[in-house]
């Protein structure tokens, strides 16, 4: 037994252990379950509308009721996103926000928040440019808890998942209405943290959610998946958020928040986003 493994063992029994930090996502969901509540997971793009607001926005999200934050990594070619999130990516890229900058923002956020899980969401190429291994090491160091790379499907992810696992970062995967059973089982084996169920066909920001479909599909998914399931795409108001929360473990809201950021001025940005999150939170928690 080498020194590292002894350390690991010791820290496992310690109150101040590293496990506190590495299992933030699982811990968050366990805590919510005890209280019989559902997670609210807002998405913002790092660096939108300007990098100087990102950390403030993240704290605002937490104060207003977010349980986990999905932080978008801007990319020049966001193929799976609708116009709203594309624009947020373009705004961030005007300020040359790189993956490295995003990691630095997370590290900065961690100085004042050690509990809220951060999930990075983005596209493969910035990760490839940094290298999967050095990305994972750096992400862990900066306090990232999970990563969802939209264009790394399970087929192309065996090394990627290993790499994240080594650095105790959760590999988050998407499932969609068209995912068939065999793939659901495959994803169930690879995924950690939670599953992100894309509730409709199309790109982010679309607005025709069918709750009956979501309910049917989630029942199917639960036969194979023990992880919490978050639902995203098409959730634009409290009523839908509440309805989705009743079916799932977490509600993911993205484009609606970006729209709020777009229409806010610098002075009311934080309060507008805060009110929106609070309204969603209240709707989800309402009995």
């Amino acid at each position, binding site marked *: 037994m080498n020194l590292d493994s002894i350390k690991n063992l010791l820290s496992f029994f310690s109150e101040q252990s590293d496990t506190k930090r590495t299992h933030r996502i699982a811990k968050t969901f366990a805590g919510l379950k005890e209280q019989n509540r559902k997670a609210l997971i807002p998405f913002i793009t790092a660096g939108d509308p300007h990098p100087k607001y990102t950390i403030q926005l993240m704290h605002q999200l937490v104060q207003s009721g977010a349980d986990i934050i999905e932080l978008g990594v801007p990319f020049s070619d966001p193929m799976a996103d609708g116009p709203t999130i594309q624009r947020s990516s373009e705004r961030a890229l005007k300020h040359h926000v790189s993956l490295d900058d995003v990691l630095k923002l997370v590290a900065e956020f961690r100085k004042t928040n050690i509990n809220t899980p951060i999930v990075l969401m983005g596209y*493969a190429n910035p990760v*490839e440019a940094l290298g999967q291994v050095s990305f994972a090491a750096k992400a862990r160091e900066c306090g990232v808890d999970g990563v969802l790379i939209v*264009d790394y*499907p399970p*087929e192309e992810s065996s090394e990627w998942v290993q790499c994240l696992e080594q650095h105790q970062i959760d590999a988050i995967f*998407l499932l969609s209405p068209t995912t068939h059973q065999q793939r659901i089982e495959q994803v169930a084996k690879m995924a950690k943290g939670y599953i992100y169920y*894309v509730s409709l066909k*199309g*790109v982010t920001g679309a607005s025709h959610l069918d709750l009956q479909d979501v309910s049917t599909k989630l029942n199917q998914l639960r036969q194979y998946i023990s992880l919490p399931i978050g639902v995203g795409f098409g959730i634009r108001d409290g009523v839908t958020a509440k309805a989705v929360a009743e079916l799932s473990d977490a509600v993911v809201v993205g484009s609606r928040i970006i729209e709020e950021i777009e229409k806010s001025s610098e002075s009311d940005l934080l309060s507008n986003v805060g009110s929106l999150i609070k309204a969603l939170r209240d709707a989800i928690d309402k009995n």
Partner: protein
Amino acid sequence: MSAYDLPNKNGHFGPYGGIFVAETLISALEDLRKQYEFYRHDANFQSEFAEELKHYVGRPSPIYHAKRWSEHLGGAQILLKREDLNHTGAHKINNTIGQALLARRMGKKRVIAETGAGQHGVASATVAARYGMECIVYMGSEDIKRQATNVYRMKLLGATVVPVESGSRTLKDALNEAMRDWVTNVENTFYIIGTVAGPHPYPMMVRDFQAVIGNEAKIQMQEDFTRQPDALIACVGGGSNAIGLFYPYIDDVNVQLIGVEAAGKGIDTDQHAATLSMGRPGVLHGNRTYLIQDGNGQIVETHSISAGLDYPGVGPEHAWLKDCGRAEYVAITDDEALEAFHTLCRYEGIMPALESSHALAYAAKYAPTLPKDKLLLVNLSGRGDKDMATVAQMSGLTL
């Protein structure tokens, strides 16, 4: 040495290719892969494809010995595979017919396509008219401005041209937008990709449809010259005309394969599209391949005088052929391509597309270094009528 049989079943060419797409597209690609796997071995499908190529496209396209130009260059003999004589004026139609026939068999009544210069858009609009399908073409708003004639051609053929305002408003953004349409309308829609890029099975499928170029060439070379060429030369943007010519020759190791990329204003400037020469591997548009990108993995804008080569990626099979050394890739500047354009007009009475002019320009450099009995087969992938306004503008004229 065993015969070349890439991609593998997961769509990989060595480390390149693959299926790098969001989960929402996986089942559509899976369906396409299964259907194509069936029809590529289906005799009815293949014979209908061959009939269409013969009677609608006008194949086989001849191989023409450019004797006067060869003599002028004073070295190897230059032979031209005349894809410019195809219906719609370029090799693009070979692929759009193949994919449209597949779309029909899959019961899809709506086809979508991306286009840069408009050649693939025109080829898609053409086959959609031919088979009675609805056709939507995504085109960057910058390209729409630059290619007004082709936009009008597509409209005359009944297609709807949708301007794309995101990103750099060029081909790569049109491709993103077409993917977004596809993921939203996948039930009734077939996405006709115009080059050997995108997620598996596209690079393989487009290659197979374009391989008619190389397959014909093998027969024609034997018949007309009693031997195969010493080298094949073709321009590479995404790389469909090049792979179409190269693929049937990959196992013929005595035949040199040369891909010619766009060096734009020079590969030492930031205005070029020489992906294999200057790019680094990464992931874009569903596959792993060489990309022109900045240090942070953002895709950067490219430049070429020819819109058809103005793309920051390249087909994954070319990436593999480069890495394993089977093919070599060189780059030709705007000026060199333009000179070759004029030379071919004057010496052979053939007006080449600016894309193809890159291949011609490299042939003009290479031929004089070789003895006169060597044969260079250049893919004349398209005709240059579409480029007259660009060429006039470069000469300080307005049409």
